[in-house]
């Protein structure tokens, strides 16, 4: 735990030349990436459900569970005295999703705030956690997720922010023996959003599936920087992110770093990113990166595509009787539903699809 890189004082404020920051427009973070800029400690999540099988509390001075060299996560650690902790009890099967929503009472984009959440999925528990982010905020956060042996956790984060929101976050999962972690990151709002969904394994037989979808409209910057660290034998990972962009200045970044260390024999991994450009003036960066230190694996692969939906496609669909507006919706919905339908949360699926439809109407108007 005492790695030098874990200490904020050993880092300087990123300049944009660092590999990890090279795509991000740092002038738009409102200082969140600045190691010296002030930030207030505000535990801003509240639990909306109160079923049995879990507790949601505020814990003083909890230590961090993982290593990171991410400046913003370290800044959050340094500037927070308390951690919100969601604990799912041992062997508990929580059937209904646990909703945590961002309480913006007292927030304003002018004041940067830090939030820390720890999710403990105790041994052999089963639960779905949904974090709902909406409104206007300047937020740096770290979420650490510990899956004990045999735990099954579905972890959903929804970024439906207003356009002035700046949100930088690290979501780190530690997946125990025979545990199954499934995450869904949905980002359709926010002016500047940079998320680091990262995974490490603590025992064999563990599995992580990371799904994501993002939609960037005019002038939105949305970055998802996935990192899966296979250092344990016989673990599995799947990464599947899809994004669409429409409007001048829309910019998305997807990085998929998968590392298979020498000890990680029997690893099975595949990562995939697909982007759909719906207009001129939008930019999608997509960088899959697979590093393999052992040949004794089940499989490892990656794919990345960025395609356009253009006037010729529209003509083709229209020439088969499909009206132009329906053709656009069809293509975009079909593209997203592949991910969205996996949520198994019909109300949220419909809400996200409607948000995307609305953005499209706006952008094409």
């Amino acid at each position, binding site marked *: 735990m005492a790695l030098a890189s874990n200490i904020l004082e050993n880092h300087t404020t990123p300049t944009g030349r660092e590999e990890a920051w090279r795509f991000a427009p740092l002038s738009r973070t409102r200082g969140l990436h600045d190691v010296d800029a002030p930030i207030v400690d505000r535990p801003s999540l509240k639990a909306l459900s109160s079923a049995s099988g879990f507790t949601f509390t505020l814990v003083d001075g909890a230590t961090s569970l993982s290593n990171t060299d991410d400046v913003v996560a370290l800044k959050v650690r340094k500037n927070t005295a308390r951690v919100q902790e969601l604990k799912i009890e041992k062997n508990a099967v929580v059937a209904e999703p646990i909703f945590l929503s961002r309480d913006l009472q007292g927030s304003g984009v002018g004041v940067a705030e830090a939030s820390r959440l720890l999710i403990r999925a105790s041994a052999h528990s089963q639960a779905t956690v949904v974090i709902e982010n909406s409104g206007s905020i300047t937020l740096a956060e770290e979420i650490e997720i510990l899956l004990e042996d045999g735990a099954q956790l579905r972890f959903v984060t929804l970024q439906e922010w207003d356009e002035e929101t700046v949100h930088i976050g690290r979501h780190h999962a530690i997946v125990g023996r025979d545990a199954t972690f499934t995450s869904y990151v949905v980002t359709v709002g926010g002016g500047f959003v940079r998320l680091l969904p990262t995974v490490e394994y603590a025992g064999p037989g563990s599995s992580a599936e990371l799904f994501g979808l993002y939609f960037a409209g005019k002038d939105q910057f949305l970055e998802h920087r996935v990192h899966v660290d296979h250092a344990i034998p016989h673990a599995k990972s799947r990464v599947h992110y899809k994004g669409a962009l429409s409007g001048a200045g829309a910019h998305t970044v997807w990085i998929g770093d998968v590392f298979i260390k020498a000890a990680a024999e029997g690893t099975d991994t595949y990562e995939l990113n*697909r982007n*759909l450009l719906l207009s001129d003036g939008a930019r999608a960066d997509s960088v899959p990166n697979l590093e393999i230190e052992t040949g004794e694996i089940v499989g490892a692969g990656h794919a990345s*595509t960025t*395609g356009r*939906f253009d*006037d*010729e*496609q529209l*003509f*083709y*669909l*229209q*020439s*088969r*009787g*499909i*009206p*132009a507006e*329906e053709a656009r919706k*069809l*293509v*975009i919905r*079909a*593209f997203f539903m592949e991910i969205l339908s996996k949520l198994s949360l019909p109300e949220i699926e419909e809400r996200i699809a409607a948000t995307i439809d609305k953005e499209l109407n706006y952008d094409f108007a």
Partner: protein
Amino acid sequence: MSTLEIKNLQVSVETDEGSKQILRGVDLTIKSGETHAIMGPNGSGKSTLAYSLAGHPKYQITGGTVTLDGADVLAMSVDERAKAGLFLAMQYPVEVPGISVSNFLRTAVTAIRGEAPKVRTWVGEVKAAMADLSMDPAFAERNVNEGFSGGEKKRHEILQMELLKPKFAILDETDSGLDVDALRVVSEGVNRIKSNSEVGVLLITHYTRILKYIKPDFVHVFAAGRIVEAGGAELAEKLEEKGYAEYVTA
């Protein structure tokens, strides 16, 4: 019985050097059940005619009329033309990422027929039509035209023609890029649709070989943006022998 009537059609496209006229007064009348072949050298404007009838925005109509049973086709949007009964099998079908063939076919058929097909009969209908065109059922789950071979794209076009049941189908160089086996499968597909329906066919081609499989009732020679000679199937034989030389020197 339907009639597609093209009168004195004139079409231009925008180029870097300004507006350029491609079609210079096309006159053609097609009735249900008839098959008309339009043959001509490259650059004569055959494909422009096809795309103009379908309503591609690149082509500007500068004169003339097109009517389908008296209705003004040129006033219709692209999808309205399809709903009115026009179908264009494209020379270069477009890839549409994100949408599966099965979803696409169902949406198109729903738009054309005005109501969603019954689930129970629909699946069988698609399967049978695909089997007729020697298409693997797994094809339905692929994205529209994405990574299709030339032959797969053309089969997919004819599959749509079969399911959408147009009044008039324009086949734009459907034979191009096909090997003999694929040409036979595609041609048999067109013939099957012809024998099961009243569809009128406008077959646009550079070569005579597809006419050995799909017999035209009328052959029109196209050159410099208009029809310069019309006749029966025997005209195709003459072109096979002598080529287009006498038409392009003019």
